[in-house]
């Protein structure tokens, strides 16, 4: 086995290190990484540093503007500390984002590698399904699904995944299609390796670059979508906070308490921008054509 693995294009480990170097020299990517890491740290460590519990209601302290009464980001209509809620919401929103990334990337990779490897009718059917999902404005489909299920973080992650896996599938399919006639695949066939082994052990790892890029962008997209469906009230339900449902209801107090809308929105923007920057950096790092630039 090991000898065969060594026979696969030797560029993988090499590219890897070069990709890493390129990524680290990509300024935006680094900024993105810092943004995401800072926000993640804040969301997971912040709650321990704050004197307030995210669920504690204090009607005496409602609508405290940011910076007053020890509330760095102010309080909401029930007098709950927005900072505490924001951090907890961040855990949930990011968890949803990562869950979607894992689910969508897995589905997309499997679909892509299968149709790329077998081609023919299998590919035709699978890729038509991909087109079907792509041809929908996914927001329509998401809302239709979300309106009729029991909304919770798991369900929300599942339905966002259902509309997010197609990109990966296309990328993987294209990549695998171009690889399947190469020597190392022929060799694997002759060695009598199973199709499954060839697809997932030999072909898929070669598409890992584009997959990682797509996965990163998927996190960004999932956070945005979660925010939107929760904003409309079809997503994660209170009292469980998410960035989106913190904005749901903030519209009503836009004039009297604008921080209710501004702060969670900024958190979303920072998180999504961070992931997009990272994705951009990774794309440049993995893209061998960009070498010359």
């Amino acid at each position, binding site marked *: 086995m090991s000898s065969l693995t060594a026979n696969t294009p030797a560029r993988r480990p090499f590219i890897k290190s070069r990709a890493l170097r390129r990524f680290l020299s990509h300024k*935006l990517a680094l900024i993105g990484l810092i943004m995401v890491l800072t926000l993640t740290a804040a969301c997971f460590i912040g709650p321990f540093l704050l004197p307030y519990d995210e669920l504690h209601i204090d009607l005496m302290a409602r609508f405290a503007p940011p910076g007053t009464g020890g509330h760095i980001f102010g309080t909401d209509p029930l007098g709950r500390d927005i900072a505490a809620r924001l951090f907890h919401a961040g855990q949930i929103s990011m968890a949803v984002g990562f869950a979607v990334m894992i689910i969508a990337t897995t589905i997309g990779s499997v679909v892509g590698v299968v149709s790329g490897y077998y081609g023919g009718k299998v590919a035709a059917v699978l890729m*038509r*399904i991909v*087109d*079907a999902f*792509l*041809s*929908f*404005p*996914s*927001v*329509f*489909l998401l*809302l*239709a*699904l979300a*309106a*009729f*299920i029991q909304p919770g973080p798991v369900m929300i992650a599942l339905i966002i995944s259902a509309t997010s896996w197609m990109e990966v599938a296309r990328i993987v399919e294209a990549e695998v299609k171009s690889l399947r006639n190469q020597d190392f695949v022929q060799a694997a066939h002759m060695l009598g390796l199973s199709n499954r082994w060839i697809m997932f052990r030999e072909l898929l790892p070669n598409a890992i670059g584009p997959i990682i890029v797509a996965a990163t962008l998927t996190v*960004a997209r999932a956070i*945005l979508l979660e*925010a*939107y469906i929760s*904003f*409309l009230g079809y997503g994660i339900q209170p009292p469980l906070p998410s960035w989106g449902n913190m*904005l749901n209801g*903030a*519209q009503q107090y*836009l*004039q009297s308490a*604008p921080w209710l*809308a*501004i702060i969670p*929105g900024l958190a*979303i*923007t920072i998180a*999504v*921008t961070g*992931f*997009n*920057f990272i994705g*951009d950096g990774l794309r440049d790092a993995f893209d061998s054509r960009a070498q010359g630039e």
Partner: protein
Amino acid sequence: MLRYILSRLGQSLILLLIVSFIGFAVLTLAPGGPLSQFALSPGMTQEQIDKIAAQMGLDRPVVVQYFDWMSNLVVGDWGTSYRDGQSVLHVIGSHLFATLLLMGTATVISVSLGSTIGIFSALKRGSAFDYATTVFAMVALSIPTFWFGLIAIYFFSLNLGWLPAGNMYTVGDGSVLDYASHLIMPAAVLALVDVAIWSRYMRTSTLNVINQDFVRTAKSKGLPRRRVVLKHIVGNSLVPMITLAGLQLPMVLGGALVTETVFTWPGMGRLFLDSLGYSDYPVVMGLLMASAILVLVGNLAADLIVALIDPRIRLD
């Protein structure tokens, strides 16, 4: 060519079937239903609700309902809205203008602005302008559209009082200026993301063209730079943009839905949310189908146009 179009159309029909069945099953099997909105009405009884459900055929198995709906759809009958008893096509049609107006305006803004930015950043690759627009595009792609809309309302309507916070026009006014003042904010918000996308793609496309032989030839022939840019570079880099326009349709439509909810714009997005809230399945399904058709046709049209104007591409 004709064979290509036919096979694409055939594939599209299969797609529509898949899409419609998924949508229909989800809506029909879900708890609740179009009659639950009457549950709190004085004098309403379960008996009455059951009776109405039977009259509307809602008590039949999903598959039967689906085939009933589908066979009507095939002959052009999209069904009747549960909410106002009007034909679904009429209901969608009456919201179409608002959405097209919003999408159209936003597209004009984003294509013109986005292309300009993209070409300039490509021509001045590596400059501060290029770098700034790159960062701008990435951030713009990351801002939640609905939130950006809220913030715009906060500043321009609530604080400054310059622009109306919602609706398409003032009842009783409806002049062009009145429409424009209502349109500017939602269109700008909707365009933001697209400007970013267009500028990125235009930049890539222009870079590809710049490095091609005929541009070098044109330059070496000593043609003025302005002419090279306008005639050779811009013209050729716009071709792939047509495909992009087709691919962007679902995005713009989805974006319009989001924007309409924030600005209470009386378009298809608003209709979709209202219909969803009232479980008006025929309209929800109609909108799903209409948007899918729009997207499929848009993609097909984009591919055909590209094939027509670019002799290098042959459709098979």
